[in-house]
């Protein structure tokens, strides 16, 4: 059990107001585009208008003549330095600037540098590029056809097939299906979508020829990993590279990869000896940087007539675009997709995934989820509803019948994951009670009699977060630990640095709360700093809800090391033995004599002024934490919506989200993250898709076409929680930021299908725009 701290200390469980807010509300944040250096110049990317074309010539003489233009860099130029290709974060490589041919619309072709951003854009217009059309491959289902164009001529294997991956027992699973009395099948497409953080990607690269030091301010969720990759790829000494991720305007996975723009800015700065700024536009962000999902999935469930599930069989086609730039560090090509048995106790399961190349932007990044967990959660939660429909059973009853029971944890699922903890029924029951489920079902029945359309959608998802145990995760060999270094100053104030990097999560407050919890130093006295590779200990960054499970633990462990030393100092000051001292947040006291005590501030002062012989001066510690397992947050979400029969518009009436992320550091911050993730889930379910036409033209390339919900479309979210602490996490915490994005799409879609199920509707693919519903109503003859 965690000791409760006072509000002044502000340890775990307190809704401490965020320390970072003061600069943001006054316009005093420092985002990458706010960095301005003497002599700084601007880069602009020339991009391909074609999805697949031979590159036969680039003429840049006119551009170079424009006053103010300093350099034009092409793929051929980079090739001379061996930099025209770079490794992706998943066993593939991608072009920095195109050589030979282009493979997707908006691919990077040339980089122009000029004295100011307008001149750079003008010069880009003057560059003439010759293309010869090549046949375009858009449909991943056609990628392996004999007559499909081979996209990646650079690879030895002349195929568009990237990988086949399977997990589970195929034979045993097939065996269960042969005899199962009930089978349900779902074919679902999780569309390509984009994290679209409000700040686009960008950097300022500053190479100083005198010191030979390269400093890069970068929109990076993983600055240390970027530093090492820059060192390995560009051959620069790692100590001469400093990556600074300043304030970041949202990431959601989009800012994990290294993008060609960063590399070009670095090359240009090396070439010119001047700082080079490159900031992408919104359309560049949506059209060329890490997309997510694009999974064509099939799930089959074998069950008994009474609804007890037996086996799950999943087959998926993954569209990775032109390069497999899946920014995911697991050892598995489909990441953690094998969490697809979800919250349910299947005896057998088998899952296979094939990845293919198409003429689309590269990626497959983990958008607000741990590497394909959103796809998995959506698939199983939709499939359970399909089974319920097949059995004519209430989806709640079906779920309750099949939940992994609390006494089965730690639970080894048939696809190999060991779930650390869970109480799915408790979360479900709280959600049912909050929403008034049985009354809603009665209301729905009455409405149906009147011809009105109302739906209730349930999702009781399980997440898997906190990458990760190094046996399963690494980035180019670097294991997925994370770190914290704490220094307590003589006056009892402290600075803590981590290998993570917040992009809105509030680490400056929540990580200070962990230190406050462990050391009793008030949150107000603790500075948290992340993102500067010259000062922070090495870590793998912030994504996959890993900050709290991994760096959060490192923070607690570093604090405990400090407390151990503080005990020695307190014993010295109190002239007592260490064993006779007891700790309460903020002070050591002598057992049985509470008035004989020393505060952590007094102890900190003594660490520099009055320490015993044999003890080093100072009060600091560093800890690197490699977790033994992942954490498994879960929850039940229930969506109630009404459908307008005139327009087909679904309107969310209520949405209850019950989350269980174990012990909570800051309830206010957790609730805020859930609101935000649900809103992103709403957008994915109803509004967003990065689609391509048959020529490979992006159809969702701006905010005019790729819709972001405004305050008007977004409902009020009702949140609540249950608490099942993680047994292996020293604070019992689990990570939460991604749960709402993972769990909610199925709740929305289940609600729409539920509203239309009596008409025989079994599935609708996202995004469920009103026209899709209207078309169904029209076909059924009930549109108004």
């Amino acid at each position, binding site marked *: 059990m965690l000791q409760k701290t006072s509000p002044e200390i502000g340890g775990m469980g307190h809704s401490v*107001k*965020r320390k*970072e*807010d*003061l*600069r*943001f*509300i*006054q*316009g*005093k*944040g*420092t*985002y990458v*585009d*706010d960095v*301005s250096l003497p002599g700084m110049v601007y880069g602009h990317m020339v991009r391909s208008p074609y999805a697949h074309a031979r590159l036969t010539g680039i003429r840049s003489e006119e551009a170079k003549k424009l*006053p103010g233009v300093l350099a034009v860099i092409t793929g051929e130029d980079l090739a001379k330095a061996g930099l025209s290709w770079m490794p992706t974060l998943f066993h593939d490589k991608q072009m920095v600037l195109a050589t030979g041919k282009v493979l997707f619309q908006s691919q990077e072709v040339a980089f122009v540098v000029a004295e100011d*951003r*307008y001149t750079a854009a003008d010069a880009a217009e003057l560059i003439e590029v010759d293309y010869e059309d090549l046949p375009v491959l858009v449909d991943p289902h056609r990628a392996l056809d004999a007559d499909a164009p081979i996209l990646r001529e650079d690879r030895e294997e002349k195929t568009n097939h990237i990988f086949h991956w399977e997990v589970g027992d195929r034979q045993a699973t097939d065996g269960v299906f042969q005899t199962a009395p009930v089978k349900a099948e779902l074919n679902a497409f999780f569309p390509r979508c984009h994290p*679209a*953080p*409000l*700040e*686009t990607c960008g950097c300022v690269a500053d190479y100083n020829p005198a010191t030979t030091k390269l400093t890069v301010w970068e929109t990076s969720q993983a600055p240390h990993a970027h530093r090492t990759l820059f060192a390995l790829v560009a051959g620069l000494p790692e100590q001469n590279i400093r990556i600074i991720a300043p*304030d*970041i*305007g*949202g990431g*959601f996975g989009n800012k994990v990869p290294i993008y060609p723009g960063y590399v070009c800015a670095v090359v240009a700065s090396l070439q010119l000896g001047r700082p080079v700024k490159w*900031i992408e*536009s*919104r*359309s560049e962000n949506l059209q060329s940087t890490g997309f997510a999902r694009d999974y064509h999935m099939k799930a089959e469930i074998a069950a008994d007539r009474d609804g007890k599930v037996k086996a799950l069989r999943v087959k998926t086609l993954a569209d990775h675009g032109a390069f497999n730039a899946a920014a995911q560090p697991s050892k598995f090509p489909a990441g953690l997709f094998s969490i697809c048995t979800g919250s349910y106790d299947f005896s057998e399961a088998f899952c296979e995934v094939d990845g293919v190349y198409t003429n689309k932007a590269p990626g497959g990044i983990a958008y607000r989820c741990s590497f394909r967990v959103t796809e998995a959660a959506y698939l199983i939660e939709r499939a359970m509803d399909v089974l319920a429909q097949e059995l004519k059973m209430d989806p709640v009853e079906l779920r309750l019948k099949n939940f992994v029971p609390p006494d089965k944890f730690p639970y080894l699922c048939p696809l190999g994951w060991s779930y650390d903890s869970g109480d799915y029924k408790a979360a479900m029951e709280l959600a049912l009670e909050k929403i008034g489920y049985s009354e809603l079902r009665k209301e729905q029945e009455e409405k149906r009699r009147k011809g009105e359309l109302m739906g209730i959608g349930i999702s009781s998802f399980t997440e898997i977060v906190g990458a990760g145990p190094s046996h399963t995760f690494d980035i180019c060999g670097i294991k997925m630990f994370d770190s914290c270094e704490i220094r307590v100053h003589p006056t009892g104030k402290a600075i803590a640095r981590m290998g993570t990097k917040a*992009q*809105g*999560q*509030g680490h400056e407050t929540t990580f200070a709360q962990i230190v406050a919890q462990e050391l009793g130093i008030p949150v107000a006295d603790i500075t948290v700093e992340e993102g500067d590779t010259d000062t922070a200990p090495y870590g793998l960054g912030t994504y996959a809800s890993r900050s709290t499970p991994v760096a959060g633990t490192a923070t607690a462990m570093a604090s405990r090391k400090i407390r151990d030393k503080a005990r020695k100092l307190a014993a010295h000051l109190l002239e007592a033995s260490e064993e006779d001292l007891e700790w309460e947040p903020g002070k050591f006291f002598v057992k049985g004599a509470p008035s004989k005590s020393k505060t952590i501030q007094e102890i900190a002062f003594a660490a520099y002024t009055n320490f015993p012989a044999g003890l080093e001066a100072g009060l600091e510690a560093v800890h690197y934490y490699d977790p033994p397992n992942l954490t498994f947050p879960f929850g039940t979400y229930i969506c109630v919506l009404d459908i307008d029969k005139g327009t087909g518009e679904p309107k969310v009436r209520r949405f209850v989200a019950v989350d269980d992320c174990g012990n909570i550091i800051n309830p*206010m*911050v957790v*609730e*805020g*993250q859930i*609101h*935000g*993730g*649900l*809103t*992103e889930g709403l957008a994915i379910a109803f509004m967003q898709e990065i689609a391509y036409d048959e020529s490979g033209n992006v159809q969702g390339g*701006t*905010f*005019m076409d790729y819709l*972001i919900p*405004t*305050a*008007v479309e*977004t409902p*009020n*979210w009702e949140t609540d929680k249950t608490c099942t602490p993680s047994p292996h996490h020293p604070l019992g915490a689990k990570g939460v930021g991604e749960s709402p994005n993972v769990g909610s799409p199925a709740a929305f879609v289940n609600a729409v299908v539920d509203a239309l199920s009596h008409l025989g509707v079994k599935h609708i693919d996202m995004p469920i725009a009103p026209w899709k519903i209207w078309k169904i109503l029209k076909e059924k003859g009930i549109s108004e």
Partner: protein
Amino acid sequence: MATKKFVRVKVNGRDHEAEIEPRLLLVHFIREVLALTGTHVGCDTTNCGACTVLLDGRPVKSCTVFAVQADGREIRTIEGVANNGKLHPLQEGFKEEHGLQCGFCTPGMIMSACALLEKNPHPSEQEIRWGISGNLCRCTGYQNIVKAVQYAANKMA
């Protein structure tokens, strides 16, 4: 390059003069000429509102206004919202009600809310939602932003 134009604007109560290219966007003028970087750029299609400033008291998306169009007019940015170091009730509200996460939309959001409260000091929830509907936020889901505006409205009443 076109002939430069002379502009004179009052920004957050201070006069500024500059020779600028006629095509220079107001947002770049504010950020790069005046070095007021609290106003952000989040899209290039006038959708996101991160660049919202007040032009003669009315909210505009400064990525879609030329700086020369602001000649002789008054501009207010996020840097001019606090009064002598004292936070504006809206700024306070955003902090108290957890109305921000990454902070990138916040300045534009506050400027739109400023304009709303000046016109309508007691807005309903729906009026607040419509009032900030030109500003996109990817982090908060707007619920706490609505509360932040309500906080300010109550405080200013």
